[in-house]
């Protein structure tokens, strides 16, 4: 596979590991923002290959993990009330306050697992007598397709399609983490795919304000070790710049067409993050012109509010304050069979990554 296999090369990976080792003089805490990067690090056993001085801290970039419990309960409310709920796959097993979407499906709810929200528009077209809702979660990466589904539905005049929006944005989350007094992060590996959409502009003021290196990084082993090397190099030199390791995908200006679609349908507003709380201007809301496609308003479910599970330390894991195995419930009361929180469910969640792959469990 072009652009993949060459980034899984043993010799090249080793040479970057060597460079990191030769460059680093003291311990540095580096946070990889994206859950895909976390899994890349753990799945390929890279954490154990890195010098001890490189301390990787896992970031909040798992869309499933940061979706608040409220939203899951709202989706469940719809599913239990004869609405066809369409969702990305890894959302369905995440526990709500009482049950998961998958459990409601088992008792008769019409839940569809989709790869693209455009499919949900098709389902709405084919089921004119039913309401169809797409559970629009995710970061900037999924926002263009979700926005496009609204534009398609509008174009077709579909009145039975709406989206349950829980879009969150990466830069405000990074700032919230940096503003936290417990924060001990020295550099970021920026989320490659988010930047493929949004570009790099947002990161320059952040690097400047917090004096922190940000290296936009990909997901393959070679991407990750190269990104870490670039971050270490900056830290050792005492500089803080925005660099682009993932230049084969990320253009400085991002994807113009995708950004236009987002701007047409969404506006920036406050969003609640699971385990972190509300962060100002950290998510997308539907613009007034598209309020008819807002499932929360359409079905009057905005009032649903539930407290987070107190046994789950997802918030601390997502902010990089604690590692998954530092949770007293890790692998005990909380497993992928019976998850207490989303990071143990999602294929991008840090807890699931550690549970499935980590060498910590080998012995």
């Amino acid at each position, binding site marked *: 596979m072009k652009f993949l296999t060459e980034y899984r090369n043993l010799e090249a990976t080793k040479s970057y590991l060597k460079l990191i080792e030769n460059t680093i003089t003291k311990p540095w805490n580096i946070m990889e923002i994206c859950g895909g990067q976390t899994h890349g690090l753990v799945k390929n056993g890279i954490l154990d290959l890195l010098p001890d001085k490189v301390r990787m801290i896992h970031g909040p970039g798992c869309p499933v993990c940061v979706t608040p419990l409220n939203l899951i309960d709202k989706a469940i409310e719809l599913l239990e009330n004869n609405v066809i709920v369409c969702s990305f796959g890894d959302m369905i*097993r995440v526990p709500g306050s009482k049950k998961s979407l998958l459990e409601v499906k088992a008792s008769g709810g019409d839940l569809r697992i989709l790869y693209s929200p455009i499919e949900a528009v098709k389902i709405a077209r084919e089921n004119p007598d039913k309401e169809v809702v797409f559970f629009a979660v995710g970061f900037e990466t999924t926002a263009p397709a979700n926005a496009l589904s609204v534009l398609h539905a509008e174009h077709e005049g579909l009145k039975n399609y709406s989206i349950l929006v829980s879009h969150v944005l990466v830069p405000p989350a990074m700032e919230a983490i940096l503003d936290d007094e417990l924060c001990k992060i020295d550099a970021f590996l920026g989320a490659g795919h988010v930047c493929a959409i949004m570009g790099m502009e947002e990161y320059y003021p952040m690097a400047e304000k917090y004096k922190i290196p940000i290296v936009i990084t990909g997901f393959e082993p070679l991407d990750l070790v190269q990104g870490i090397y670039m971050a270490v190099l900056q830290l050792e030199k005492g500089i803080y710049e925005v660099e682009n390791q993932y230049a084969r995908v990320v253009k400085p200006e991002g994807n113009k067409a995708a950004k236009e679609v987002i701007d047409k349908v969404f506006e920036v507003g406050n969003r609640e993050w699971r385990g972190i709380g509300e962060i100002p201007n950290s998510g997308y809301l539907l613009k007034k012109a598209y309020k008819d496609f807002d499932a929360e308003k359409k079905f009057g479910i905005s009032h649903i509010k539930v407290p987070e599970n107190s046994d789950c330390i997802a918030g601390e894991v997502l902010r990089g304050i604690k590692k998954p195995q530092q949770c007293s419930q890790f692998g005990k009361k909380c497993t992928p069979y019976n998850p207490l929180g989303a990071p143990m469910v999602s294929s991008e969640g840090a807890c699931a990554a550690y549970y499935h792959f980590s060498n910590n469990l*080998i012995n």
Partner: protein
Amino acid sequence: MDDSELGFDTINLGHGSGGMMTRELLDKLIFKTFRNPFINQKHDGAIVNFNNKIAISTDSFVISPIFFKGGNIGELAVNGTVNDVAMCGAIPKYLSLAFIIEEGLKIEEFRAIIHSIKTAADKSGVLIITGDTKVVERGKGDKIFINTTGFGEVHPKANISADRIKPGDKIIVNGFFAQHGMAIMSEREGFVFESSIVSDTTNVNYLVKDLLDAFGDNIHFFRDPTRGGVASVLSEIATDTAKGISIFEDQIPLEKQVAAACEILGLDPLYVANEGVFITIVDPEIADAVVRMMRKDEKGINAVSIGEVTHEYPGKVVMHSSVGGKRIVSALIGEQLPRIC
């Protein structure tokens, strides 16, 4: 057979009533297709002779869609059970065949399934000797469910048991992983691109017999990684035997399109279902010869050794990644779910 012989074009509840309509369906389609001395007796059961120990395996097939690229539920129901019997180190000989049909199934679909069953049974050298047909109301099933039970004679030289797996043994597979699961996925709602991936459903019983003829009890174990994929089977073996299993990412046999589809959809091919793949765990002395022999058979052209049994990491499967790292491979939990981005 000519459609006009049957005076109906869909299956209805009457075809499961046990009365005249059932008889017509059986006579004109099922008995006629599967003719053999056992089923010809049209009795409630079949009486057969065996000379050796027998291996028995049963499986139910509930796949959706019932027709997919590379096959249909009918041949799957034959190959799946034939292979399970073969995995016991046995030569499959007879199959029972039971249908639960949802009313409304088109007779042409049922006929296609029956004919696929016949073809697959002939290819595997097994006879359909008894069966059952039930029809349920619309909404109480999903077009058609099939159960088959296979009976086979244990190969005289076979000694297949998890107890015989020992450190140093090599783990060999006969071909590409994840073909079946990805073919099915490409037919389901929500799949966003076209592919020409076809299911690998096939019978492997003759290759298994050849291996047993040649290597006898130096073959310690067989298993076909269907649902849950290779990862789940290896994980089960490691847990059950309390031995370690090391596998090497570089050795995992993947067809390019399947590898790409898994990559795009965020699925790990180790957890995706197979229907024509088997794993054999053999004495290290014969490992190279086993791979050579498999590669001469069309069912084993892509055979490769993917790892070995170890003293280290008892009860765990450890993957050695292509960049030199290690990780645990755990059993599949629930259904593998596609990721968001």
